[in-house]
């Protein structure tokens, strides 16, 4: 993995830059430059790679962020915005000549308006904290990425994060009403607000999922929703991926939209069962978790209909959660799947492609072939309702050459996702990880247009450099590897 070559002239000015940032953000512990402290910022959730930044600054207000951006703009210093650092694609990976602007000191809930069903919070507020701020009125914030305890709402906006309930509630962009944006040259711009839809061009829609390429978001207004009366999952097991896939099609085709529809293949089931004893059947090739919500009697009716549909697809296993404990156990299995895979393998890469649901059996078949070609075991977890596929490639980073081989394996899987009509990233973003694959999904003139729009916001290309777009032919240097 390579990054653009660092600008040595900036690195030589490091002390002056650190001093200046300290003057802009005078609160204690706002600037991090000491060797032992800055190491916490050298990587994110893509922990195979690391790079110590020039300096880290943690502003307390939007105005401080604006002043930092103005300074960095004048001094031609690259900036990487960072929330909680949970990106799985290296979206918050620093550069050696760049300043990391961390938003995690900005954690205030600014306004909750139940009558308009909106909440305005600072960018460093965690995803789960928004729900916690409104749950006393039985409201919630819908997108629920599995990192929701740690990840920040600013990072969710940057990556248009999803979660297990997107089929019913959509992803971040569908729940976002407004942001306060600091531009590369330090202007503060409000985009959207508490009202619906844009006055002019939908720049809010453009900003969401732009991975820090267009500016730094410091405040976020989201839609909050009333929680349903109840929800209950059922667990289904099938003798083949094809049968499970056909059952998914039949459920959706029947007119019922479950709030969650999750698929796990055999390697994933076995890893989970060995780890948390969720009660998953071990003698099946695939399980589905189907959850519906509503009043108790409505749930009974809907699960009854889904059970009837499932019975037409020869399930080997079928169980409706009889109580809250059983429901929690079913979900605990799914939610601990990544950790479970981490237990049976020294390392794994989590892939984040999206495919049309109808292509699932074929895609899994071809992933099986890729698995045999590379000699890696692959466990597949799939948000079946929305087509987001997470193959986990199990490998050993300590064995020479294995990381590179696992990355090639992942690239082959992502190309397969594009080939069957899907895309490179459903919810993790492109970051540094899938940057070079963008040329596989997009033609040159399509990337040209996206980069022209990037330059409309960031003419000198100072924001989150080395991400999203393929590296140009300019000088570059290898990125550090994990010890």
């Amino acid at each position, binding site marked *: 993995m390579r990054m653009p070559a660092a600008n040595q002239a900036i690195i030589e000015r490091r002390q002056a830059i650190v001093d200046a940032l300290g003057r802009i953000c005078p609160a204690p512990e706002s600037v991090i430059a000491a060797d032992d402290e800055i190491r916490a910022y050298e990587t994110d959730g893509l922990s195979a790679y690391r790079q110590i930044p020039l300096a880290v600054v943690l502003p307390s207000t939007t105005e401080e962020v604006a002043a930092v951006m103005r300074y960095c703009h004048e001094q031609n210093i690259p900036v990487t915005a960072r929330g909680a650092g949970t990106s799985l694609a290296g979206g918050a990976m620093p550069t050696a000549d760049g300043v990391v602007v961390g938003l995690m000191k900005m954690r205030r809930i600014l306004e909750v308006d*139940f*009558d*308009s*069903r*909106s909440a305005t919070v600072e960018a460093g507020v965690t995803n789960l904290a928004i729900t916690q701020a409104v749950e006393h009125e039985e*409201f919630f914030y819908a997108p629920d990425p599995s990192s929701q305890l740690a990840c920040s709402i600013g990072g969710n906006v940057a990556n*248009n994060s*999803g979660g297990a309930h*997107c089929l019913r509630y*959509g992803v971040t*962009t569908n729940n976002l009403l407004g942001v306060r944006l600091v*531009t590369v040259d330090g*202007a503060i711009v*409000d*985009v959207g*607000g*508490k*009202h*619906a839809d844009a*006055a*002019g*061009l*939908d*720049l*809010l*829609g*453009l900003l969401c*999922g*732009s*991975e820090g*390429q267009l500016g730094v978001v410091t405040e976020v207004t989201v839609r909050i929703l*009333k929680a*349903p009366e109840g929800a209950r999952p059922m667990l289904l097991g099938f003798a083949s991926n094809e049968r499970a896939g056909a059952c998914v099609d039949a459920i*959706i*085709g029947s*007119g*019922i*939209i479950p709030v969650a529809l999750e698929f796990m293949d055999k390697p994933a089931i076995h890893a989970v069962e060995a780890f948390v004893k969720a009660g998953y059947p071990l003698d099946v090739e695939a399980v589905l978790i189907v959850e519906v919500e*509503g*009043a108790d009697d409505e749930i009974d009716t809907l699960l009854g209909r889904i059970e009837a549909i499932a019975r037409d697809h020869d399930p080997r296993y079928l169980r409706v959660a009889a109580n809250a404990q059983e429901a929690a156990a079913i979900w605990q299995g799914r939610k601990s799947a990544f950790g479970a895979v981490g237990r049976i393998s020294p390392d794994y890469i989590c892939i984040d492609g*999206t*495919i*049309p*649901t*109808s292509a699932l059996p074929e895609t899994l078949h071809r992933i099986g072939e890729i698995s045999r070609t590379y000699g890696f075991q692959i466990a597949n977890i799939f948000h079946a309702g*929305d087509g*987001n596929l997470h193959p986990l490639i199990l490998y050993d980073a300590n064995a020479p050459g294995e990381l590179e081989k696992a990355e090639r394996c992942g690239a082959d899987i992502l190309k397969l996702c594009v080939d069957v009509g899907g*895309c490179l*990233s*459903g919810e993790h973003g*492109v970051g540094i990880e*899938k940057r070079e694959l*963008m040329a596989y999904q*997009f033609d040159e003139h*399509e990337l040209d*247009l996206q980069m*022209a*729009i990037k*330059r*409309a916001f960031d003419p000198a290309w100072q924001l989150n450099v080395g991400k999203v777009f393929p590296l140009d032919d300019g000088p570059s240097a290898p990125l550090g590897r994990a010890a």
Partner: protein
Amino acid sequence: MNDLTPADEAGVAEAVKAAATDAVSLELVGGGSLEGFGRPVQAGRTLRLRQLRGIPLYRPSELVIRALAGTPVGEVVDALDAEGQALPFEPPDLRHLLGNDDAEPTIGGLVAANLSGPARISRGALRDSLIGVRFVDGQGRIQRSGGRVMKNVTGLDLVKLQAGAHGTLGALTEVTFKVLPRSETQSTLLVGGLDAAAASRVMARAMASPLDVSAAAYLPPDVAARSVVAELAGRDDGVVALRLDTFASFLPERLRKLRQHVAAAGATDVLEDQASGTLWGEIRDVRLLTHPLDRAVWRISTAASNGPRLLVSLATDMDGRGFADWSGGLLWLAVAATDDAGAGAIRAAVDAVGGHATLVRAPLAIRAAVDVFHPEAPRLAALTRSVKAAVDPQGIVNPGRMYAGL
């Protein structure tokens, strides 16, 4: 030669490329049903997209449909209806409001205007259902963004950007939507005898129930009385309408709970499936304000809790008439089409509470003279201009449709 009707996407690309080479501007036209919406465009050529027609992909079990931009909205709706599905955002049909009764609305025009009906508060806007586009940019290049899957964070999201761009960012050639099952039945609870403040409270209360209220509107007395629905026609009180869309077997219990939830607020009536559909059609297509045709019509977006109060104060001050949809977040207001059609006063009132106001219907001279779309703050306007310049460097597609000089 100045009126072009290409047969396919390649023909559209050729036409735009030729216009770019000749430095001649283009006005984009779908079915013409939105003619008169937006600032008047003065273009050297007209580019008609109506021949781009058809549904190349529809998979009911994947909840996805793809149509060429010139496909009539009705064709898309019928195809979905045959499989028991629908466009989630309940597309409005504004041809009568705009006096284009004989025109055929196209799916591309609907996307270009990002028009969403009453279900926007529960099922999202058009732009939320739109998951893929193909378009020809200002240099005549065929561009793709998004695709046929709902989760997609691969590169910049130009799909959202195209929704509501009114053709200023190129010519849409193909659009892909995520769709939903059509609900089995609907029913509407009417709560009468409400002024603006009481209406706000009832709608907020209904939306804060777990009953999945799919639409909520406030009709002041002079607007409620214009409905053709028997329970409303000729009434002299303000009414809140709350809609439930669900399975037939769930409806009686939900209705009972909803009634209980808002009971204290006033006398209630229930509209069954068909009457409910009629009322929400009148609201969706703004038929309650279509006549008299010489009045100017504004569309105002604001925080839901501000809406009814803002509506009543504007209607009183300007001798206007209007109603609130989207639980108070969307106001439609008809006023006299004289001077600036109330632009100054309306925009000042909207700016004071946050939101934006669009002049949807007005004589050409007024639309040429006042800002049809809400003016943006200077720095936001600068970003809008630079995005336009990135997609259409010569400024040749629908120049001036949204903002002067853009």
